[in-house]
């Protein structure tokens, strides 16, 4: 077997050192009844590299990839061009095959990268600090809600109707067990976000308001009045960013005084990967750092006074606090954080701004073109690279029909909100730098034909 270095003579020599006659002697503590006498019969035996590659390639070919179709899906996962050097660098064995940096003297590479990542994320989100990443945006969002409970000692959270329905669903699942009370609602196909309604709901029991920015329909709103309203009631404002590229073009939630800003970092460096692994972003104001979940990297010096980095404030974490930990999380999304950070370094301020500009410009012209189709209406007043169309018919079958024609047209709200008739005609369309004018034109003409 190509992954196992021991030879049969090795095994025998080692058994002799151990003082065992057969390998079975090492499994004596397994009760007789639970011992399998040979390889599990229902499963196939080992295979060559070539055979496995053939098997996996055949499975891969059964999927229609984003790269081979006009592609307009978003809603929490975005197709962006990832520079070739990103994937090369994350495959360096010293990054790929390292562990959590528990021995900092021989993990400065990972640690310095995490310190840079934390700074990049904090600046992007507009927060004072950021952690070394979470599993993904949806779990980061729930962790933020729990963190707000710890800080405010209140258990009632208000979730905006524009929050990604999967994120709401995750929070609902967890809240069932933790006893947190969540106020949730489905969005309406209207031009503006529900900020006034949210402000009206805040009271002395409110731990936090959770608002997505841009929201699930792509809408953008000034969060400052909402932040003020939260703070007036000593509640926290949590902002959720599922498309971090947007913050290259618009003011960040932190700059609008959000207390905790979380996000999905997949857009930068990571790729679509059918939903995972992704990378959760988590930033907050300085004063809340000890209530933060997840790993943190900090600057220090070594015994000779040279700058170095370590994991720090780990008394918040499960391996020390056990049942009193801020969270049970014991990993971050290290390699995805690295990919995010490399991509961000390649872009820099200038590149990110330009990337955002290209995305927005493309979305604006696509929205214009698509809303010219008879019966199709643009819902949004404001958007970044994603907007919602209201079709004259249910959107979900239209998306399926377009997929049959080789076009991945967007995310139908019927898929995200099954059974919600008021949303059934909604189609969320994302346009990035990977979308060509021809792609938009293909979608427009095919959609027009189907609707005619």
């Amino acid at each position, binding site marked *: *077997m190509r992954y196992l270095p021991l030879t049969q003579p090795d095994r025998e020599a*080692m058994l002799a050192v*151990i003082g065992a006659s057969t*390998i079975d002697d*090492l499994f004596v503590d397994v*009760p007789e*009844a639970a*011992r*399998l006498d040979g390889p599990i019969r*229902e499963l196939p*035996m080992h*295979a060559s590299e070539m055979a496995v*590659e053939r098997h996996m*390639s*055949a*499975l891969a*070919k059964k*999927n*229609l990839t984003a790269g081979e179709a006009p592609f307009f*899906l978003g809603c929490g996962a975005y197709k962006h061009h990832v520079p070739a*050097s990103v994937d090369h660098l*994350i495959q*360096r*064995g*010293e990054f790929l*095959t390292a*562990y959590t940096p528990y021995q900092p*003297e*021989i993990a*400065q590479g990972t640690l*310095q990268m995490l*310190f*840079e990542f934390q700074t990049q994320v904090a600046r*992007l989100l507009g927060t004072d600090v950021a952690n070394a990443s979470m*599993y993904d945006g949806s779990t980061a969002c729930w962790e933020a809600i729990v963190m707000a409970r710890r800080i405010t000692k209140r258990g009632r959270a208000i979730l905006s109707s524009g929050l990604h329905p999967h994120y709401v669903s*995750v929070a609902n*699942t967890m809240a069932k*067990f933790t006893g947190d009370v969540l106020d949730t609602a489905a969005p309406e196909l209207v031009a503006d976000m529900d900020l006034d309604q949210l402000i009206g709901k805040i009271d002395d029991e409110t731990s936090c308001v959770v608002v997505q920015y841009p929201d699930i329909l792509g809408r953008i709103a*000034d969060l400052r009045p909402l932040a003020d309203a939260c703070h007036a009631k000593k509640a926290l404002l949590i902002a959720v960013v599922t498309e971090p590229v947007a913050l290259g*073009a618009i*003011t960040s939630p932190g*700059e609008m005084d959000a207390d905790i800003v979380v996000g999905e970092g997949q857009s930068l460096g990571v790729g*679509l990967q*059918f*939903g995972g692994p992704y990378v959760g972003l988590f930033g907050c104001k300085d004063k809340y750092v000890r209530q933060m979940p997840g790993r943190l990297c*900090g*600057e220090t010096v070594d015994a000779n006074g040279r700058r170095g980095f*370590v994991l720090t*404030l780990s008394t918040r974490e*499960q391996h020390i*606090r056990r049942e009193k930990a801020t969270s049970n999380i014991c990993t971050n999304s290290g390699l995805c954080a690295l990919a995010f950070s490399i991509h961000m370094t390649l872009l*820099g*301020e200038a590149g990110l701004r*330009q990337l955002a500009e*290209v995305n*927005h*410009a493309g979305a604006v012209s696509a929205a214009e*073109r698509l809303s010219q189709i008879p019966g199709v209406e643009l819902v949004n007043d404001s958007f970044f690279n994603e907007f919602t169309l209201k079709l004259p018919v249910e959107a979900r079958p239209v998306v399926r029909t377009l997929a049959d024609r080789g076009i*991945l047209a967007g995310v139908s709200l019927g898929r995200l909100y099954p059974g919600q008739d008021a949303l059934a005609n909604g189609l969320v369309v994302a346009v990035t730098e990977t979308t060509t004018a*021809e792609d938009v034109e293909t979608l427009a003409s095919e959609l027009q034909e189907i609707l005619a």
Partner: protein
Amino acid sequence: MSINQSGWRPTSPEANTGNVPASVTGNKALMLEEALIFEIGDAHSTGVDFAAPSPPRGEGRGEGKPSNAAPGTAPHPTLSPKGRGLSRLGNLSRTAPIGLPGLSEPETVRHYTRLSRQNYGIDLGFFPLGSCTMKHNPRLNEKMARLPGFSDVHPLQPVDTVQGALEVIHQLAHWLVTLTGMTSVAMSPKAGAHGELCGILAIRAALEAKGEGARKIILVPESAHGTNPATAAFAGYSVEDIPATAEGRVDTAALKARLGPDVAGVMITNPNTCGLFERDMREISDAVHAAGGFVYCDGANFNAIVGRVRPGDLGIDAMHINLHKTFSTPHGGGGPGSGPVVFSEALTPYAPLPFVENQDGQFVLVEEETAGEHHAGSFGRMVAFHGQMGMFTRALTYILSHGADGLRQVSEDAVLNANYILRSLDDTLDAPFGPSGPCMHEALFSDSGLAAGFSTIDIAKGLIDEGFHPMTMYFPLVVHGAMLVEPTETESKAALDQFIAALRSVAERAKAGDPSLKTAPHFAPRARLDETLAARKPVLVWKDPAPLAQAAE
């Protein structure tokens, strides 16, 4: 003859006889120091080019065209919607700089390459971090995960367009269920600890469905990973410790005595964190079931028994599997992980959404929309989308490579390697549970017998100078100064022999009180780091001496 005019007269090299001055750069030949991106980058540099957008419909893109996107012109780092008339940013256009430094591609490649070289990885050498299972990461896994058919598909595409991706999930699920002898598997948990949460929530959902929601206690052995009690507490349970026996296993009698109508379940790691198989697992499971509770098994150490023992045969109700431990997906410097959870028949109805089903040859994603039909007891969704697809493709690739026979050999070699280390070193280091019999996949030593003032950390740092990643230290908590050594099956006998010699030497120095060990490591990129300073005055982000913000204006 003609005279050599270059001045270079080759001779044999001279041996180093005295002190060598430090280099001006701080570099040491192949070991290069690297500044932070905030010190070397700036707001104008970039390693990404943008083409001018192609005009739609065969004409100029008009006002929608970015003002500064013409090739060859320096990008202006502010988006200026004024005068373009088409910005739809709702008056929220960014006005302030973000403060993100950029680097050109060659500088970027060099920055991260230099950083990478300050890391230890499995590719470089032996990494016997106990309970973490640092085994070789086959590169075929990486290649397969990058096939566009897996890496470039969106989680919300119509299911007809992602049948191959769903089939990967389904095939891996089948392997995991069969290898563990369980009934079903939840694929979506994002890591081991997330899987623990999944299992405990299923237990709670099952108890509540039976009207037994009043059970509020989860029993956890003292030797457990910290995630176990943290998870139980997060799910609303109180945690009670179960003591260990002198031979390092769960005290079955004490556990049974504590069972009762208030106990929701137990969380037991098997093989346990002392590297021992819990012989009484079946008996414990039966007793817990008889008392109306459920058995959660922490499957972190499944790699020790895969192919030889099925947890389902031990009465387990739920167990997470760390794909990065047993099935070789890369650790990546701390994630991403993946923690599928296998369930018994009793817990299957409560497993989370979504999951993949094969309905008459068509792979279907069961989500909130259709769950009501035959999965109404599900406790709900744990993550957006469907789990760590990139890890599934890698794990399936590994599993297919090994097959049922290879996986059995994996656990045999892992256990053989660990016992070889245990018996090769128990004359030098104290092995507190050595007399209990063979270990499983990891060997545990204590700091007993070291000279006064010397501790496990000194041995660990000494091993760094010998070119090894240290073992896990000070865990499990039940052993003083614990050293947990997990070699895995992907080490050769020669590699083990070199490590054994090195650890023996370092241990002898610690027993003799060699003061140079207190300042180790001496040859690493950094000496011991001041963690007290880091925690007392946390510096978690870079602060510009002269803010980039101003430099950008």
